[in-house]
């Protein structure tokens, strides 16, 4: 059996050390003689703060001599008080030389391209920027010398001035070959009144039309769309088990519909 006294001085230190005592040690106040070494330790540590200041690095000396540079003042770069964009600036500042060079070139190219596109640069500068940008990007500039034909407005369509049909204005029957999009216009745009119903077999769904589809007649069209087959003993051609996705949806034992009477 052990008692607290068997642990020796370490246990006594534990018993002596409460929050108030530890605060007194850190303050350098008088404490129990068994804790005096700790007070000396605290004083030694605190005494390091009374040493002479270390030599400042050249960069720090320069900063002090220059009055803190332009970083001091109301817009310091402290994160809590950073002005908008400061973080971006610091990130850019932290990039390597090659990255900065690339970023600067890209920014310059973007700015020049914008200026060239806006037409605010002199003609020669615009040509140079356009050539440089087109050489490295898929961007294509419209040639200002060909964007508007030199004969723009010299000739007026006969439809427009009414010399063709005696009525001013375009009736839509024909479109000038000089109009925009002429290269993509079909040769035969179709005629008014042509609905295209006679060419339904050419549609993508034509392959699903059954070969022996009964001919349409007025009576059949009046019956229900899922009329039962004429022979009640024959299996249904389509149904839930047949896997067909189209056709009649009547179950095999569906009652005869009115079309039986018609057949």
């Amino acid at each position, binding site marked *: 059996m052990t008692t607290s006294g068997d642990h020796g001085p370490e246990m006594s230190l534990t018993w002596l050390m*409460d929050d108030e005592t530890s605060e007194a040690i850190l303050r350098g106040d008088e404490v129990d003689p068994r804790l005096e*070494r700790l007070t000396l330790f605290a004083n030694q540590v605190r005494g390091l703060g009374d040493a002479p200041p270390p030599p400042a690095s050249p960069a720090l000396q320069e900063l002090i001599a220059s009055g803190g540079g332009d970083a*001091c003042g109301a817009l310091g770069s402290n994160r*809590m008080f950073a002005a908008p964009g400061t973080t971006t600036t610091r990130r850019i500042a932290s990039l390597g030389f090659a990255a900065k060079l690339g970023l600067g070139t890209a920014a310059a190219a973007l700015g020049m391209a914008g200026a060239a596109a806006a037409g605010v640069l002199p003609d020669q500068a615009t040509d140079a920027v356009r050539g440089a940008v087109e050489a490295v990007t898929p961007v294509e500039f419209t040639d200002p010398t060909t964007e508007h034909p030199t004969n723009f407005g010299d000739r007026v369509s006969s439809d427009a001035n009414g010399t063709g049909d005696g009525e001013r204005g375009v009736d839509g029957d024909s479109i000038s070959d000089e109009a925009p999009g002429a290269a993509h216009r079909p040769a035969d745009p179709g005629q008014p009144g042509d609905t295209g119903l006679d060419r339904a077999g050419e549609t993508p769904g034509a392959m699903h039309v059954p070969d022996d589809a009964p001919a349409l007649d007025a009576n059949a069209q009046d019956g229900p769309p899922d009329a039962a087959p004429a022979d009640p003993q024959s299996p249904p051609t389509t149904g839930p088990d047949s896997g067909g996705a189209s056709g009649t949806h009547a179950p095999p034992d569906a009652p005869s519909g009115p079309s039986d009477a018609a057949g």
Partner: protein
Amino acid sequence: MGQRDRFGGQFDAVLMAAQDGAPWALERVFTTLAPVVTGYLRLQGSAEPEDLTSEVFLAVLRNLGGFQGDESGFRSWVFTIAHRRLLDERRRQGRRPPHEPLVGAAEDFALELTAPDDVERSVDRSLGAERVRGLCDQLVTGQRDVLLLRLLGDFSIEQVATALGKSPGAVKALQRRGLLAIGRLLEREGVPL
């Protein structure tokens, strides 16, 4: 624990002048707080405590314009920067540097601190500093952080808790255990400070 007034009651005037870019005020900030920052970094095992101190004050002086608060808050801010720089240094090195031999390190430290008018006193202080550093080196990181921030940074319990992201109760426990650990080490070594 009472906090020391290291600026002699002139903190507000010094800060205002420093924020306006007065070189004398910037130098005053450095000379007043650099010793405690260097001591903190040294006892935390920094490989180059003086170089790191300059890095800390480069950051402090560059960001001075955005600071608002009293001397206690300013010291807390400076030490927070110092602690972050210390962690950065440790990450760069990948591990804590091995402790230097006591004699050689003491001689180097003595040379660094030598003042022409008080060589003997500087040597005495350097020897004590190395012994204190050896003791701090054997503490658990949390205990060392708490004791050094309280003793050199003049942090309150609450300020330490905020800086280290711990509760005040946890800080008190670390402080108590740290002092107990130091006491046990001193008793085992039987070496007077």
